[in-house]
């Protein structure tokens, strides 16, 4: 089955990102297809390459990048939400791309299920 994931919360002080990441990994482990992960609202903070978590914490941005590299998952950051929050091409983590909200709608149409994490 085809899945799309919507992430609406930032990576620190909110569990939503970790939940979305675990769900994404389980989608792939379960033999399903992950059409796209769309980062909206505070979710765009996940794509900030400059973020470096304190010792003992896992970098979710890095974990998303690894997922993209290993499994060719399409990670899309909302351009408007990113602009507003200072997430741009210049500081984008590897594996993410910036595009419009239409990509979220398209993902929901292409996928059999859209699952939202946050806020």
């Amino acid at each position, binding site marked *: *089955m085809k*899945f799309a994931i919507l992430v609406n919360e930032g990576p620190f002080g909110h*569990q*939503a990102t970790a*939940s979305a990441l*675990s*769900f994404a*990994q*389980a*989608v792939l*482990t*379960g033999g*399903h297809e992950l059409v796209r992960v769309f980062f909206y609202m505070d979710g765009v903070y996940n794509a900030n390459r400059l973020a470096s978590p304190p010792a003992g914490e896992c970098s979710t941005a890095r974990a998303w990048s690894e997922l993209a590299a290993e499994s060719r998952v399409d990670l899309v950051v909302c351009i408007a939400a990113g602009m507003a929050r200072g997430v741009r091409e210049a500081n984008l983590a590897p594996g993410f791309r910036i595009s419009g909200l239409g990509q979220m709608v398209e993902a929901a149409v292409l996928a*059999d*299920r*859209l*699952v*939202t*994490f*946050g*806020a």
Partner: protein
Amino acid sequence: MGPLHTVNKSPFASTALESCLARLTEGAAVLLIEDGVYAALAAGAAADRLAEAANRHPVYVLGPDLAARGLAEASLLDGVRVIDYLGFVDLATRHSAVQSWF
């Protein structure tokens, strides 16, 4: 099958669970994740309302979120089923849509 409803807020802090339970339809199921898992504590003040819903709908709780919080399965309400992320994905495939309550 009806929708799968996920709830990620504590029932002691937020009305999200109560709001969700009040809108369950035939065939709907509930999955407690993140801080939502506290609702499944059998000895907690929120247990009665959840137990009532569990009589008519499957209620699941995400095991990794229980473990992170130090909650033992033995402390949960009867009838609540513990699943992992693969189980979450599987539930999503078997329900018509996934609706998040937060």
